[in-house]
């Protein structure tokens, strides 16, 4: 009601009422114009020229101006305008270059009044003078503008733009003598009606054609222009040089612009291509339309505000042969749907939060939203043009909430991943180690799980004599030492060495896997024979350790001969040796098995005070009852499932790897694969490449195992002679130089070798990093600006 009251005062008692409505036209419309009293609208097009009256509920056809048998081209209208002072007077611009005036007061059916056939090509625009009854202006494709006095037969004056076709002409509303014309070459000209020889002023407004312009109804200095470059620009013409004060970027070329009455900063636009919607923009907020009318199914060709002083009713005609009346209340407001907030959780538990300033400003603590903002989508505010956009210069505040180390961050994950031992040691040690890691990170439940796993799976073996235990203890400590050493090496990335050791580790695990069936049998054997063959094992283990030591020795003095660096040649034979070695195989079985460790159990239990007393007693009873080793498997399986469901896939996968075949059969392959892929993905997110690679290697799923063997080919060029290297070793066949020299220290690089793909020079990772801190050029002096990504 409030709105209507405003309207009625503005219109001097003549209230506009109505709703969103439309009517079908017989043909596509090219232009529309309203009568001064806002009760009638004229629609013109190639095949239509009709007057409709705007009733409360509908449009009613009043008059068809296309009369006569043979339709003349004079009826084919590109533009139509209804005089704002004389409600009987209309003018049309015909596509054949004729300007026609129509007098509705004529008694005959044919209302055609005058015919001006002066333009040679299509007339794009006609415009009546806002206060002078008889003055009519036209702009044509032929590049001329003509001013007609309707009392005379011919034009009064002709204005030549001296540039391309005229797209729009508009009399200034306040300056009696001034009009603006827009051109296809992007120019806008201002003319004084009294001086047809030369424009007053010209400026380039757009890239490409300027299709339309509109003078601000109140502010005499403002001219809005719209062009094919999808922009609407508002120019302040008061200054000597036209100054662009606002620029609105729309999504399609702008065909029409119309200032919204009574709203200083609002302007309606429609497009001539692609986009069928009508937008109303607040030029102060040029990025997002304040209102949008989406009714038309084809290009909107004409828009006009129904009344000079009413901002709520908009009429539009379209190529889809409809005439619409839009009510502002029914407009969709994109900003209402727009998300005022952005929120994202980072990997490390940081939260990025962007929110509209007004939402988080401190005075919003008053909780104003409970009532009125609860359903803001359903609730359309009454549009009061004065305060329609209370946050006209909307902006967002961006902040990142950083978790500190202790609480929410994901550091525990990284630490756990780095510190867990997954293979290469007896089960009990792995479990103990991992329990300790978990404990150290205050993850008591996980620590407990590891401890229980150790008890479950290590105590099922033989409880041997102390002597034996002792020796076994020794055996099992020497080897893990080796392994831990290897693992430590891997991150530091000593290429050939670590590769070698890894291949050994691989073969070990492979052996374990291969003999998965025999392991259990072997285990039982052990129980029966009370470890009689264990001493032999120990010896074999010793032998293997020695072998390892030998290899290690080899690598400690690697400069003995260059052949040493040709990794592939050396690595593979060795690997085969190990695999073929039956003693190693036996040993490996046992190492992975329980009997070794069982003796140490009491000791380790006492070392970990976390454990409750009851757990120890359980372990004893287990041993005494000689439960089958898979007795607990369902429980363990459920434990793993529990961890997975809790989002702790790390624990699930780690246990899976450590327990290996003991539990593998219990969980279906697909789930295991799922866990592996999830965990590997997580590790890679944290850029723990080495660990992820280790997990891939240790996994027992075929699909996972092949992950790090897929589609990675390195083509290597010799850094010396720039020719492709044959894939045998690191010595270039042609220039007999070692290819992998560090360009900084000139030593052969073993381990991580980083090189520029542009110039193929490189070297030790650390050296290159250091070098690049001071220089961006290649350390080899080749002058290349190296790129390392």
């Amino acid at each position, binding site marked *: 009601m409030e709105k209507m009251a405003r309207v009625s005062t503005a219109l001097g008692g003549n209230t506009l009422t109505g709703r969103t409505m439309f009517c079908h036209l017989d043909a596509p419309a090219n232009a529309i114009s309203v009568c001064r009293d806002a009760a009638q609208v004229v629609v013109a097009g190639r095949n239509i020229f009709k007057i409709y009256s705007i009733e409360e509920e509908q449009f009613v056809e009043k008059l068809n101006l296309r009369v006569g048998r043979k339709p003349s081209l004079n009826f084919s209208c590109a533009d139509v305008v209804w005089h704002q002072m004389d409600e009987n007077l209309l003018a049309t611009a015909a596509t054949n270059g004729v300007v026609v005036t129509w007098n509705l007061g004529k008694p005959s059916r044919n209302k055609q009044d005058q015919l001006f056939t002066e333009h040679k090509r299509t007339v794009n625009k006609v415009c009546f003078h806002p206060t002078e009854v008889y003055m009519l202006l036209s702009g044509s494709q032929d590049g001329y503008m003509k001013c007609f006095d309707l009392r005379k037969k011919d034009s009064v004056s002709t204005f030549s733009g001296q540039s391309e076709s005229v797209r729009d002409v508009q009399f200034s509303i306040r300056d009696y003598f001034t009009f603006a014309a827009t051109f296809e070459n992007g120019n806008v000209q201002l003319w004084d009606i009294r001086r047809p020889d030369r424009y007053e002023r010209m400026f380039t407004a757009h890239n490409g054609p300027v299709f339309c312009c509109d003078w601000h109804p109140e502010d005499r200095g403002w001219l809005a222009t719209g062009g094919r470059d999808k922009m609407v620009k508002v120019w302040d013409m008061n200054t000597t040089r036209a100054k662009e004060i606002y620029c609105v970027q729309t*999504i399609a070329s702008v065909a029409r612009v119309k200032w919204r009455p009574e709203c200083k900063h609002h302007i309606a636009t429609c497009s001539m291509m692609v986009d069928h919607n009508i937008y109303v923009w607040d030029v102060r907020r040029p990025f997002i339309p304040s209102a949008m009318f989406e009714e038309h199914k084809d290009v909107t060709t004409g828009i006009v505000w129904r009344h000079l002083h009413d901002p709520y009713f908009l009429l539009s005609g379209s190529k889809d042969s409809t005439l619409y009346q839009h009510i502002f209340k029914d407009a969709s407001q994109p900003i209402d*749907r727009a998300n005022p907030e952005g929120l994202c959780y980072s990997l490390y538990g940081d939260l990025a939060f962007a929110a509209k300033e007004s939402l988080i400003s*401190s005075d919003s603590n008053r909780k104003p939203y409970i009532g009125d903002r609860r359903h803001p989508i359903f609730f359309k505010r009454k549009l009061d043009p004065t305060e329609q956009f209370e946050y006209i210069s909307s902006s967002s505040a961006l902040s*990142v909430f950083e978790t500190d180390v202790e609480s929410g961050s994901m550091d525990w994950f990284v630490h756990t991943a780095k510190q867990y031992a997954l293979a290469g040691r007896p089960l009990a040690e792995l479990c103990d180690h991992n329990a300790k890691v978990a404990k150290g990170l205050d993850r008591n439940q996980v620590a407990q799980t590891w401890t229980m796993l150790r008890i479950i799976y290590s105590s099922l073996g033989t409880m041997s004599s102390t002597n034996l235990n002792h020796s076994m203890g020794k055996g099992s400590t020497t080897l893990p030492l080796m392994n831990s050493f290897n693992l430590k090496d891997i991150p530091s990335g000593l290429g050939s060495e670590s590769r070698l050791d890894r291949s050994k580790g691989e073969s070990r695990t492979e052996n374990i896997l291969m003999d998965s069936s025999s392991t259990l049998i072997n285990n039982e054997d052990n129980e029966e024979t009370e470890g009689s063959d264990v001493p032999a094992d120990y010896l074999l283990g010793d032998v293997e350790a020695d072998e390892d030591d030998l290899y290690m020795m080899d690598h400690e003095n690697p400069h003995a001969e260059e052949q040493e660096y040709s990794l592939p040649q050396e690595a593979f034979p060795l690997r085969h040796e190990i695999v073929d070695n039956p003693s190693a195989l036996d040993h490996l079985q046992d190492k992975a098995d329980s009997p070794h460790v069982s003796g140490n159990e009491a000791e380790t239990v006492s070392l970990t005070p976390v454990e409750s007393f009851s757990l120890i007693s359980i372990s004893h009873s287990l041993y005494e009852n000689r439960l089958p080793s898979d007795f607990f498997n369902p429980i363990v399986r459920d434990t793993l499932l529990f961890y997975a469901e809790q989002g702790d896939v790390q624990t699930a996968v780690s246990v899976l790897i450590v327990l290996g075949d003991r539990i593998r059969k219990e969980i279906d392959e697909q789930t295991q694969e*799922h866990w592996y892929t999830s965990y590997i993905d997580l590790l890679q997110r944290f850029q723990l490449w080495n660990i992820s690679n280790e997990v891939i290697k240790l996994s027992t799923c075929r699909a996972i195992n092949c992950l790090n063997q897929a589609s990675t080919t390195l083509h290597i060029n010799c850094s010396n002679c720039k020719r492709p290297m044959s894939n045998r070793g690191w010595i270039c066949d042609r220039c007999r130089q070692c290819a992998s020299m560090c360009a900084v220290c000139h030593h052969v690089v073993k381990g991580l070798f980083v090189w520029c793909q542009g110039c193929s020079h490189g070297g030790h990772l650390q050296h290159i990093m250091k070098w690049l801190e001071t220089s961006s050029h290649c350390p080899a002096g080749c002058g290349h600006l190296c790129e390392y990504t």
Partner: protein
Amino acid sequence: MFVARSIAADHRDLIHDVSFDFHGRRMATCSSDQSVKVWDKSENGDWHCTASWKTHSGSVWRVTWAHPEFGQVLASCSFDRTAAVWEEIVGESNDKLRGQSHWVKRTTLVDSRTSVTDVKFAPKHMGLMLATCSADGVVRIYEAPDVMNLSQWSLQHEISCKLSCSCISWNPSSSRAHSPMIAVGSDDNSPNILAKVQIYEYNENTRKYAKAEALMTVTDPVHDIAFAPNLGRSFHILAVATKDVRIFTLKPLRKELTSSGGLTKFEIHIVAQFDNHNSQVWRVSWNITGTVLASSGDDGCVRLWKANYMDNWKCTGILKGNGSPVNGSSQQGIFNTSLGSANASLQNSLNGSSASRKQS
């Protein structure tokens, strides 16, 4: 404990989306001012804007990162009815000296006739795919058959949702047991009681996406939707931002039990529903393990939700956007969580440092 670090974003209009990359080292923001900015984290934890460019000729609603395996790639979608794919170019230009990086447009996806409201890359194991949804209710799934060529995308699927779409989320599960699945939220505000969350699943037999489920209980406009990172779970967790925060679990029923058509049937439970924001909820985001949900609403607060060992979801923290203390945060509890220390002592205390914030 959270420490608020305020960043002078310098966008000239509302920021609609913030997105971290795969490794959490980079951040992208998009705004109504038609631009996207990329932020890189420096050694000391500061965020520096390393790129800012005009991406669209309308409001940019969403920005999202591709898996780094495909390069440094962003996708954005806009009111201008397009979605675009951007790639960072490392070249020997002066950009590097100024600490700026250069992003080039690789493709524009122009199939939509209305505003494109969301764009999301598919999980990596599906290849280089992305899904868009638009206000006219169409979800489009594109694929780049050659991952090395980011300028060629073919439209693989068009799913008509019948309702204006506002958000989509891929199911991130990498399990072979879970077919590709996408959840679509609608912000349709007409007073109907249609389900505003629909779940589409890829059917191997028909090679099409078909509607697997609709969350009938969600009838209010949905602003955001997010599957939790799966991490080996057998079921899926879905967070929905509507007039409140809702968390659903979707347990796939065994294939044997599902009758025909190859579509998975789900046992859907709503496990949590919170209206603490007292207003529209605009965004939901999961932490990396899918154990903590963050939501933000019209009250300008971020609330954190976490399940305890009984699977009861509780508020574990409230963060105020401007760093001022929050009243009524006593409802938060501290739990002994099954993940140990992970997020057990999440607190709401904030040391606001809003020095650089502009006031409008």
